[in-house]
C-alpha cells in the first residue's frame, strides 16, 4: 500500500521534510512517492504526514486513487457552500 503524488503538486518541499520513511523524491515536473518505501506512516503517525502538510487539494492520492484532501477540505469551504462564501467575502 502506498500513496502517490499527481501533477497538481507545486513542488513546495513541505512533504519531503516530514516523511518518516524518506519515500519522497524531488522529481520533475513534480515530486513523487517511491511506492516501495511508502508505509502510509503506519506505525509512525496517526495520519500520513505528506497529506497532512500538503497545501494543494487533490495532489496526494491514497492507495485506491482517491484524493486524501478533496476539494474544499483545505480552504475550509465545501463546494456547495462556495457561492455563499463568495457573497460574504465580496461584501467586505
Amino acid at each position, binding site marked *: 500500500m502506498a500513496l502517490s503524488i499527481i501533477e497538481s503538486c*507545486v*513542488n*513546495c*518541499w*513541505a512533504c*519531503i*521534510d*516530514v516523511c518518516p520513511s524518506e519515500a519522497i523524491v524531488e522529481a520533475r515536473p513534480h515530486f513523487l512517492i517511491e511506492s516501495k518505501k511508502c508505509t502510509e506512516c503506519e506505525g509512525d*503517525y*496517526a*495520519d500520513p*504526514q505528506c497529506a*497532512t*502538510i500538503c*497545501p*494543494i487539494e487533490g495532489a496526494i492520492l491514497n492507495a485506491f486513487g482517491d484524493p486524501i484532501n478533496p476539494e474544499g477540505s*483545505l*480552504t*475550509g469551504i465545501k463546494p456547495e457552500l462556495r457561492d455563499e*462564501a*463568495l457573497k460574504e*467575502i*465580496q*461584501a*467586505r
Partner: protein
Amino acid sequence: MELNVLNADQAPATAEGCSASACGSSNDQMSHLPDSIREKVQNHPCYSEEAHHYFARMHVAVAPACNIQCHYCNRKYDCANESRPGVVSELLTPDQAVKKTKAVAANIPQMTVLGIAGPGDPLANPERTFETFRRLSAEAPDIKLCVSTNGLTLPMHVEELAKHNIDHVTITINCIDPEVGAKIYPWIYWNNRRIRGKAAARILIQQQQKGLEMLVAKGILVKVNSVLIPGVNDEHLKVVSKIVKEKGAFLHNVMPLIAEEEHGTFYGVMGQRGPTDEELQDLQDACSGDMNMMRHCRQCRADAVGMLGEDRGSEFTLDKIEAMDIDYDAAMKTRAIVHKGIEEELAEKQLKRERLAGVKVPSGPVAANKSFRPVLMAVATSGGGVINQHFGHATEFLVYEASGNGVRFIGHRKVDQYCIGNNTCGEKESALAGSIRALSGCEAVLCSKIGYEPWGLLEDAGIAPNGEYAMEPIEEAVMSVYQEMISSGKLDAESELKKAEV
C-alpha cells in the same frame, strides 16, 4: 534584557505632535528610538525611507516549505512576472545561498542585510535556514542577518536564532483573536496533525505571542508585520498594534493585502478586496499613537536583490554566480570603506537638517492663531531627499502631509501594477490614468518636470502639478507649497465651501 523602548515618555514625537523640524526628519522614523536600537537599524534599508536610497538588501530563497496556510498566499511560488512576498524564481541550497550572498555583497558593496523570508516559512525549514545563517555568520561577518516567520515554530528556535548574527526577526501577526484568525488561516500543521479553523488560529496566535516575548527577553529586535484585510482584521489591527507594542516589538509594519485573481490565492480567487490607500493610511495613523509605524515597506519578493523597490536578481542567477570568483576578504575591505562613506554622508545630511530646522518652522500665516486643515502632497524623487524626478518617470510617489505641525512622511504609492506581465494579467490601464488614481487624496504633486498632457489631467483631478521645486529638499518644498496654499486663500473656509459646492 528588557526592551521597553516605546514608552510615551521616551517617544514623545508621535505622528500628531511631531513637526519635521522637531524630529530632525520625518524621513527617518527611527529617530525616536534609543541610541542602542538606532545603531542596530541605521544602515538597514528596510527601516528608514532615507537609508534605503543608500543601503541595499537581499533575500535568499532557501526556505520553500510552509507549515500553515494563509488565505493571501498561493503555494505555487515560481513566477517571474510577479513581484510580491512569497514569490521566487529559483530555490537555492544553503551552499548556493552563501555563494550568492558573497557574490552580491562583493558586487553591490552597499548591501548590508541578508534576509531569509521564504518562499515558505523559514522556521519550517530549520535545517536549510540555519545552515545558511551558520555559514554566513562565519564567512561573511560584516553582513547583518534577519529572518521573517509566521511564528508557529518560533519558540523552539529562539535559542538557535540567538546564536547567530541575527538582530532582527519579523513575525507576521495578523490577529490575536482566533475568531478573526479562522478567517485568515484555514489550517496549520501542528504536532504531526492538520488542525483547522479556530483551534488552529488559537495555537498559531499563542505561539506567535510566546515567540515575541522570548525574543524580546533575549534582546533580539522584533518587528511585527500585519496584512490589512478589509472586513476581516482592519479594526482588530489597532488592538494588535497596542499589544505587540506592550510586549516590546520595536516597529509595526501594516501592509496592504495584495489579492489579484491571477495570483491564484484564496482571497484573490474569491474576490476579497485589498484596502484603498486611504484605508491603509487611516489605520497606520490610528496605530501610530501607540506604536512606531513603518510606512515605506515595498513588499519585496522572497528572492529580491538590490535597493528597496528594485530587483537586480537577474544579475545573480545560479549560472552567473557559478562563474564568479569572489575574494571575500578583499570585498570586506572595500565594503567597509563604502559603508563608512555612506554613514558620513548620512551624518552630514542629518547635521544640515538640524541647521535648517529653524528655517523650516512654519511662520507667518501658519503659525498665526488660525489653524488650517492638513494637506497631502505627492513627491517624485529618485532619492537623496530632494525632488528630482520627472512625473512620467516615477514608478512610485512619496506622500507627505503638511499641517500646522510641520511635514511628515505618510507612505508611498506605487504606480506600476503589482504584476508586470503582459495583457493576460487583468485589465490594462493607461500608465497615466494609473498614476492619477494612485494620487487620490493628494492635492499637489511635486516633481522636477511634468508634461503638458498629465498637467491638464492632474488639474482636472484636483491635484495641482508643481515643477517649481526641482532639486530642492522635499520637506522644505512641501512646507512652501502648503504656505502658498494658505496665503492664496485656498484653505480658507469660504474657498473650501465653494469647492464642496462644485
